[in-house]
């Protein structure tokens, strides 16, 4: 069915592009976090005498990590529920790819032009996250179980936040098509008119991408690696690849929905898209560097609830007021 609406070459192109952009976003994230911590972070240009060992640049470090894991053996714990344990990372990757194909690129709408592309992208993002905790629960390790439990609690909140944010954007623009929203907001970006919805979306992204203070499901000192504790080798590589694609999807969706500034700033749409996506990554890296982790799932729930309610009220009010601007009503 997918073949009917997207051809194989476009799908491969989107996957490769998503993985590469995911790596670049992660590089920017790590680099800025390192700079704020007084470190150098991953090197853009490796010292010449180390080229034979490390290559010329470490911008694609995340990809090398995946490559290394692919070369390793996969160990499946005896106590794990094997079918789900193996299926979870595979399905997580499939859902991550499916979420990425709904992100329109300047000049390339892909599936972003579909009438309900926003709803579908968010649905696949949620399915990806559910695979993470299902995999963790299938591992049968106390740490994975504790991590999965935390992920489920956080999932309930960040998915609600994401849905609310997307719904408010759709209501403001009168469409559930990502491409149409992007076209309608190009002359007047939503970040300027409804910054609360943008903050709501970023709040959801921090939870989904486990950025501090919302990295409770993967809190190393408390639950080791959370749902990923028992994963290694090729299965972990699939999870990490899926994560790279999710980083791309979340960031690109944010910049497409809220930072479509091509017309507004009279610059090339590609340049605008990449620049503002990077800016969003920098904002997240600053948040990551200055925040300690929250105190367990209880604190996550409380902080999400407070922020969600406040931001939803504010952005809903803005949406009602601004809706005529975008819908022409």
């Amino acid at each position: 069915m997918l073949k009917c609406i997207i051809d194989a070459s476009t799908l491969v192109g989107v996957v490769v592009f998503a993985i590469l952009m995911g790596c670049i976003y992660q590089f920017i994230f790590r680099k800025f976090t390192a700079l704020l911590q007084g470190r150098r972070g991953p090197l853009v240009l490796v010292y010449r005498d180390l080229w034979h060992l490390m290559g010329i640049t470490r911008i694609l470090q995340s990809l090398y990590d995946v490559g290394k894991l692919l070369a390793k053996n996969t160990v499946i714990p005896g106590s794990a529920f094997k079918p789900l344990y193996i299926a979870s990372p595979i399905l997580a990757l499939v859902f991550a790819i499916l979420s990425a194909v709904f992100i329109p690129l300047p000049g390339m709408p892909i599936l972003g032009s579909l009438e309900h592309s926003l709803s579908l992208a968010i649905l696949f993002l949620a399915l990806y996250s559910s695979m993470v905790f299902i995999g963790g629960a299938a591992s049968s390790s106390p740490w994975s179980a504790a991590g999965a439990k935390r992920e489920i609690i956080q999932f309930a909140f960040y998915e609600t936040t994401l849905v609310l944010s997307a719904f408010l954007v759709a209501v403001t623009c009168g469409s559930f098509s990502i491409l149409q929203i992007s076209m309608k907001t190009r002359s007047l970006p939503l970040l300027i008119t409804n910054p609360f919805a943008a903050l709501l979306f970023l709040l959801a992204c921090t939870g989904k991408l486990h950025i501090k203070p919302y990295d409770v499901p993967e809190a190393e000192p408390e639950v080791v690696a959370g749902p990923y504790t028992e994963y290694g080798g090729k299965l972990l590589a699939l999870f990490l690849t899926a994560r790279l694609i999710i980083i791309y999807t979340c960031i690109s969706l944010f910049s497409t929905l809220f930072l479509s500034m091509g017309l507004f700033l009279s610059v090339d749409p590609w340049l605008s898209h990449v620049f503002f996506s990077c800016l969003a990554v920098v904002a997240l890296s600053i948040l990551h560097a200055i925040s300690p982790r929250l105190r367990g799932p209880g604190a996550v729930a409380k902080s999400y609830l407070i922020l969600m309610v406040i931001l939803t009220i504010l952005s809903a009010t803005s949406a009602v007021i601004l809706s005529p601007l975008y819908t022409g009503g």
Partner: protein
Amino acid sequence: MLREQILKLLSEGFAQEIKHDDHQLLAEVSPERLQALTELLLKRFNARLSYITASDEGVKGFQVVYIFSFGHVERGVYLVAKVSASRFNGRVPSLASTTRQAIWAERETMEFTGITFTGNPDPRHLWLPYTWPEYDYRKVRIGAEESLHAGRDLRARVIPIGPYHPATLEGQYVKLFMERDVIVDADIKLGFNHRGVNRLIERRSFDRGVFAAERVCGICSGAHGLAYVTAVERLCDVKPPERALHIRTLLAELNRIQSHLLWLGVLCDITGFKTGFMLSWSLRERILDIISLITKYRVHYNIWRLGGVSRDIPDDLAGKIVRQLSKLKEQASSLAKKIAEHPLIKHRLMEVGILKFHDAVDIGAVGPTARGSGWKIDVRVDHPPNAAYADHGIQWEIPVYTGQDCYARLLVRIDEILESINICQQILNKLPQLPKDLLTEVGNPTEGSEAVGFNEAPRGELLYYVKAGEEGAPACVRVRTPSYRNNACLPAMLKGYTLADAPVIMASIDQCMACTDRVEIVDVKKQSSFALSWHELLAFSRKASRRFSINA
């Protein structure tokens, strides 16, 4: 005054033989009267039972040594009470019902010597492998398991932290019994790093023992060196020259600063505040640079000698360090303020891991853990080591907070960093006026004489009990580290909190398992264990260095 009162009490039929000097009281006590004596000492004189250990007296059997400290009541006073026990099936009444300070020490002594402490509620092994058949820690849990089963929920989930876990970094096994997300009970098992350093020191002469003592811990090596030389100098009745005393204080305080900065980084890491971790450790590097300028080493200072120190600090270097420390003080103060006032750090530490004052006293918390619970004890005042502190005009405040939680312990350590920098500055400003002598000659102590060397290590009270043997070698050396004491407080601190709080609570006492577990090498293939001699260790080290230089 207090000394006389204790002597009077001891002479009321409690002790068979009493020896004493200015501070130390030594008494031979009969096993029958031990419990009554302890109760009186604790209630009437507010004593602390610092340690229980045993020395092997050969055919005579064992001598169980009880070290009672009164330093927080009257400066420098302590009592070493000794009870004889037979080599075979030796029995001594347990003091566990009188004070919880005795439980761990009795378990340790039972395991090492085979003496039975009748009435100890928890006779499980502390150091043997946790799968040891006698008590398999993974399955059996005497007492606590019963109380859990008699309680509300039979399905208490067990979450193991360790033996190797990202939260603890060093080997230990903490078993958390969880009901939903709440810790209802906790158990701790040590022994994953046990290296028998006591025995290594006993195999060396007094002057070479200091090098082994320094290697008990890589973070507070300075504190161990100072405690050991203090104990041996007390045995020999030697007072080192003024300048040496000041240099000792300087290094002990620099040691404290770097240890606290390291801890601050670890706390930030555990709470997920990596930026705080990086900044604290970069500041710690500056302190290590200063230590390296003075001693030429960063971890083991190799400066402690019986009767003084081995290196001087030239006046120009002292001036340079003072300038560096002024800058560091500002940076440390600013960083500590940012960390302590961060709303999320406050949220994670405040009202978490409460150790009530009476629990701290009863279980015997020491150092910043005790001071964070409002108990003003500091060995630098109570039992000053052979270094320059209040007696030599050095002034500082002992930070005490009454919060009793992890945040209070954070504030205590932050204040201590600044106070220690202050002490270092006073010492460095004084050094140019002091005579240049660094060493005093030290003779051999009388055979059979014994002494206790105290020092305030970064984690709290550190104690070396040394008994002189033949020909200038120790007959018995025992080390009681602060983490040993603070670790015993952990179960009380963990109960009622969540899994998310457990690593923070464990970090708040600044656990050091290398100290607690005090090298034995185990050949897994041959299933045998052995200790390396000094020359073997040296050859081993040279071989490794050569290999490294070839690879480099």
